[in-house]
């Protein structure tokens, strides 16, 4: 995070020293693009704020640990698609669950869809891609998450072909 601030600051200063005009133009562009997308961001933040407290990490941990591997994988992928969680919470959670005997393929489905599929971020994605392409992209990502999970299962000997 700090790197981002330093990078932005240094780039701005260098840009300013080379050309004031161009820097002002850059800030104008930044503001214009930001302002345009702000309503979608606002809408998304409200949606996320409403949905996330309904699926707390404890609930996710309990659900992932309960089922057989196939069902667990599908449920895990489903929860991962809806939920949003920073990596520094999701991966330690996955580590704990694995040590409790939850199959790797369940965790894989969960973390991969958590990263790739964004149902809650859809309002923002729709704004950039349009509704249909955003739906297609997320469906394809969901499929990829399931494939990753199954191959993880095979690689860890949880699925025998």
């Amino acid at each position, binding site marked *: *995070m700090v*790197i*981002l601030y330093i990078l*932005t600051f240094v*780039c*701005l200063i260098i*840009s300013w020293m080379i050309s004031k005009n*161009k820097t002002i*133009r*850059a*800030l*104008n*562009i*930044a*503001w214009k*693009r*930001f302002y*345009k*997308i702000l*309503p*979608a*961001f606002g*809408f998304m*933040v*409200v949606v*996320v*704020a*409403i949905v*996330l*407290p*309904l699926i707390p990490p404890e609930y996710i941990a309990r659900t992932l640990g309960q089922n057989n591997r196939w069902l667990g994988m599908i449920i895990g992928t489903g929860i991962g698609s809806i939920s949003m969680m920073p*990596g*520094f919470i999701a*991966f330690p959670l*996955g*580590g704990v669950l694995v040590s409790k005997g939850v199959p*790797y393929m369940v*965790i*894989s489905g969960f*973390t*991969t869809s958590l*990263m*790739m599929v*964004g149902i809650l*971020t859809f309002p*923002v*994605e729709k*704004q*950039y891609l*349009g509704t*249909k392409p955003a739906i*297609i*992209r997320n469906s*394809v*990502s969901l499929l*990829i998450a399931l494939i*990753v999970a199954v*191959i*993880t299962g095979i690689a*860890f000997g949880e699925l025998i072909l």
Partner: protein
Amino acid sequence: MKRTIIISLAFIVFILISWLLEFNIGIDMGKSFLEFALSLIKIVPFAFILIGLFEVWVKKETVEKHLGEGSRIKGYFWAIVLASTTVGGLFVALPVGAALTRKGARLGLVLVYLSASAVCRLPMTLFEASFLGVKFTIIRYLVSIPLIIITSEFMAKLMPELKVREN
């Protein structure tokens, strides 16, 4: 804009009422709103400033050469390298994707970049490997990246008119 304002107002009223009545889930929603909004404010405005500088300073030819129609295998390499260094996930990747599109990057590679930015974030990967093992991480990379490239190219063929941009 209007819809957002109405929804936001309704939400604020709901949170205030929850707070007054000590309705727990409503209070949690208020907290998660502040938390999430703050985490975005910490990243997104800076990302947009960098995007603005990118649009002013980077030549169209440079992007076209590396990520445009003529780029070959190397295009995937650059798209993925760029993705792995993108902080902030989709919220940053989408505006960056739009900026790349304006500079002449081709759709297939922009789609690779968007998906790869979800999967290949460097700091996150280190975290993942330390908690779930290197094998877990390697499998995820080896399986997801080829699939991302194949499906992105396929989507680009399927929807050639698609342009990533602020609508």
